[in-house]
């Protein structure tokens, strides 16, 4: 358990086992997307495997996720996504109708995102060897000159912005998978974010860092950035937008909404003098209407994310460890 949860344990697996295995052929594991030079162009390149139960949930399906997730990984490097590939691992016995719904969702998502699905592969594994449909997408995009968006550029003083409210995707998937009726009003936020990023870049602002807070939620995204850039992040608890449905579900289940996955949100580190312009551009975009400033990047407590509480304390926001363990004695 824990190694797939998108928290400290999966980060460890990548850092200590997978990347070292590659030796000289590998790169760094600093972010979800590589920016490489090829034929004189700056290309962004990413790949992502999707294992989702259930495959269909309020607000989307594994098909939407596979397209939007990869589009977003490219967008978080400031790239314009262009081409995607898709590889299916199908479990014997999966209804063809399900597969049809998934591919239709992929097509629709790709069209909406303005990317093309240009190649792919399909394998079938025996019944019991898979879990319906596993889907891997890779994507290529181009990065304009002058765009340098990387976790290590987070700097003290930066405004920390979020494009919308938190926790919808994780709660939507959970409620469908577990058959929990209380949260059926919560739909996934899955969306392609490169248009939003383009609007942010169009302000002329120097975006330091962009990150989609997917697995492990906002807590994982900010802790990774803080660790990479050796900066602190200070949030204001009351500014964190958690919708009632998400808050209720998390309360009942004992989950932390900051650790719940999002699929259509981005967090941005922006120079403070440009934050208002960027926020205005975000709010003017359909996927950024709920954008707001949630905190500040600071020089103190490097590597740590904290939240100022209503009581006047400063709560430490830990890196999720992959499962909910009590710490209180």
């Amino acid at each position: 358990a824990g190694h797939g949860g998108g928290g400290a344990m999966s980060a460890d697996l990548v850092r200590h086992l997978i990347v070292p295995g590659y030796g000289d052929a590998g790169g760094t594991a600093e972010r979800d997307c590589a920016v490489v030079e090829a034929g004189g162009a700056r290309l962004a390149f990413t790949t992502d495997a999707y294992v989702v139960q259930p495959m269909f949930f309020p607000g989307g399906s594994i098909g939407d996720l596979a397209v939007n997730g990869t589009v977003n990984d490219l967008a978080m490097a400031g790239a314009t996504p262009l081409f995607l590939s898709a590889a299916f691992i199908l479990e014997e016995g999966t209804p063809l109708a399900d597969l049809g719904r998934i591919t239709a969702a992929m097509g629709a998502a790709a069209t909406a995102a303005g990317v093309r699905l240009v190649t792919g592969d399909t394998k079938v594994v025996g019944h019991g060897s898979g879990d319906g449909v596993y889907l891997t997408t890779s994507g290529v995009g181009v990065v304009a000159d002058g765009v340098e968006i990387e976790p290590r550029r987070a700097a003290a003083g930066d405004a920390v912005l979020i494009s919308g409210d938190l926790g919808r995707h994780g709660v939507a998937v959970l409620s469908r998978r577990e058959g929990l009726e209380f949260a059926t009003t919560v739909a996934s936020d899955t969306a392609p974010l490169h248009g939003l990023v383009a609007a942010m870049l169009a302000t002329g602002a120097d975006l330091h860092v962009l990150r989609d807070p997917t697995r492990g939620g906002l807590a994982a995204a900010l802790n990774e950035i803080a660790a990479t850039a050796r900066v602190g992040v200070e949030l204001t608890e009351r500014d964190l937008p958690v919708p009632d449905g998400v808050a209720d579900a998390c309360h009942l289940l004992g989950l932390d909404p900051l650790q719940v996955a999002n699929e259509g949100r981005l967090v941005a580190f922006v120079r403070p003098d440009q934050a208002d312009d960027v926020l205005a551009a975000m709010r003017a975009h359909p996927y950024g209407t709920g954008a707001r400033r949630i905190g500040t990047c600071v020089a103190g407590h490097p590597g740590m994310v904290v939240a100022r509480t209503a009581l006047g304390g400063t709560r430490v926001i830990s890196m999720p460890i992959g499962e909910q363990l009590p710490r209180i004695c």
Partner: protein
Amino acid sequence: ELVGRARTVRRRFAVSGLVQGVGFRPFAYTTATGLGLAGSVTNTADGVAVEVEGCPDAVHEYGLRLREGPPLAVITAVEEREQEVRGTAGFRIEASTGGPARTLAAPDVAICDDCLGELRDPGGRRHRHPFISCVNCGPRYTIVTGLPYDRAATTMARFPMCGRCRAEYEDPADRRFHAQPIACHDCGPRLELILGPMTMTGADALSEARALLAAGRIVAVKGLGGYHLACDARNADAVAELRRRKRRGGKPFAVMVAGARTAYRIGVFTDRDRDLLAGARRPIVLVPRRSGGGLAGQVAPDSPDVGVMLAYTPLHVLLFGLPGDPPGPDVLVMTSGNVAGEPIVTDDADALRRLAGLADAWLRHDREIRVACDDSVVRGDVILRRARGYAPMPVPLPFAIGPSLAAGADAKNACAVGDGRSVWMSQHIGDMDDLSTVETLHTLAAHLGDIAGVEPKTLVTDQHPGYRSGCWARANAGGRPVRTVQHHHAHIAAVMAEHGLGAGERVIGIAFDGTGYGTDGAIWGGEILIAGYAGFERAGHVGYVPLAGGDASVRRTYRMALSHLRSAGVPWDPALPPVAACPEAERDILAHQLRTGLACVPTSSVGRLFDAVAAIAGVRQTVTYEGEAALVLEGLSRQAGGTAYPWKIDESGVADPGPLIRAVASDVLAGVPATLVGARFHAAVIDLIVTQAQRCRESTGLDVAALGGGVFQNAILLTGAVRELRDRGFVVLWPRLLPPNDGGIALGQLAVAGAA
């Protein structure tokens, strides 16, 4: 030998232990001159060396008195050697030879009787001086800024001594010879009271503060290790207001009294409690509250006990007033001046800002507090919180370890540095939820290394992957190795170490607490370990039940009760208090979680079992502070007797709590009062300890049982377990120098890592 002429002898005493910076040399001087002995005393690398010369009886007597030492000294060894008689006259204090290997900072010490007398003496030059101290009393650890311990390396450095203080400081016969915090009205720190736009100083500040307290106001008072928030403990409105402002929930407040007689009127003290109350360490002593003592109910709304301490600084004594002063409260609530979850405030500017919503006025002074140090809390034989008066006293180790630093655990954190056969435990730091607590750990770990002269080469932490103390250690390792030690292994190793068990020894370890990360990824807390320093074997544990949703089930104890009921096969009957307390929507979801394991982790925690039983008995359905349910249940269970609830223990030592839970539920449904349910449950836990210990003795031949973990803060359990185990021939060890809770765990971490 000739009749009528006394023989002369000369003897050398080499004294080791905590003997420097505690007034040992003036003590040696005055004792020698008092007995008419000649000789000399000097600090050495190993402690203090004294040579005395004179008649044999006096030299013999001198040896006896030397072994008692001045009040603050901790003498670990005295070596004697006969010397050639030299015929010297007089007694000299000689320059240090070799320099101390390690200059130990002493703990802060409560005002001594001599200083108290001078404080009250209208003819003396320190009459009513709020900072009176001497070589036997006053601030130490909280004002030390560096090594060696000298005036310049304390926060008193900025107060140049006046001529008269200087003369006392330099006079070997004076009680203030080399007393670093020496001061007087002319040259010492200044008092002031901040009240809105007004500032009052000196005696006016004190009398106004007392008047405010008498009028039911809340005053922030700067003490030795930080600010307190004070109010009249007999004024129900004032106490309720303080509780409201601090958002304190039901957690008890400690109180301070000026004299022991007042203490005896509000609490029931044993002889040992009385010694603790008036001793030099002067902790908060937790005792049964006396009915009719006149304390406001809100002081400790859920507890039959009260925590009492005696005024321990001259400032506190003056705040209560000397004879003839206008009257003020005779019992004050004295609670840590902090925002919930943060460490105690020490800095003056911080105090004004952070306590702005809490205090009506600030009584403060310009002597800086170098490190925060809360009041210590003691109940009977057990230290519940180890801080002022105890830290940074080193704990001796039974074997030598390399220079290392242990980060402790996340609840009630205390860190430690160790080297050779000594471990310096930090004072209580707090729960690692708040940034300021993590920062305090950072500061204190460095400070402790500085004053102990230890440069850690290895770091040691708990195995919990989410502990912030562990994250802190990894982030600050700087290339040094970071070792991890299992939580309950550390609890048991701490007990072994403080009792001096050697490197190869093994014990039957009984580690009962709320939460600790197990080697199987479960949350342990009901562990029977066959443990040595180098390793352990899990010989038994409380059977697993699911803990749903991490900390949610710790705060909402009804969830833990529902989990235990389900595991025991008891239907969720709304006649059971936790079933009724759980909102219906949550009940459905919780049922789903427990069925499917969604966001659940298995736990063997006895702390959580306490929570569950307290909830089923209708005592607490939610808690506002850690251990609340168990504390309240213990309070209720004191008077009643009753037969123990049953367990089912299998061959592998797994104790299924199912039979116990079924019996508790049927008692509750039959209307049995919580007092009896609680008593039967305490008896059951004692039974479990005894049965498990006997199982282990049969299989291993070991007969030493070591008790550790926060559950043993429970006095019924500790005394019961010790008694029952001894009756069956066990040697029983439990924490005496350190808290049984996670505040003692850093010692075990160092011992385990150092033994490997």
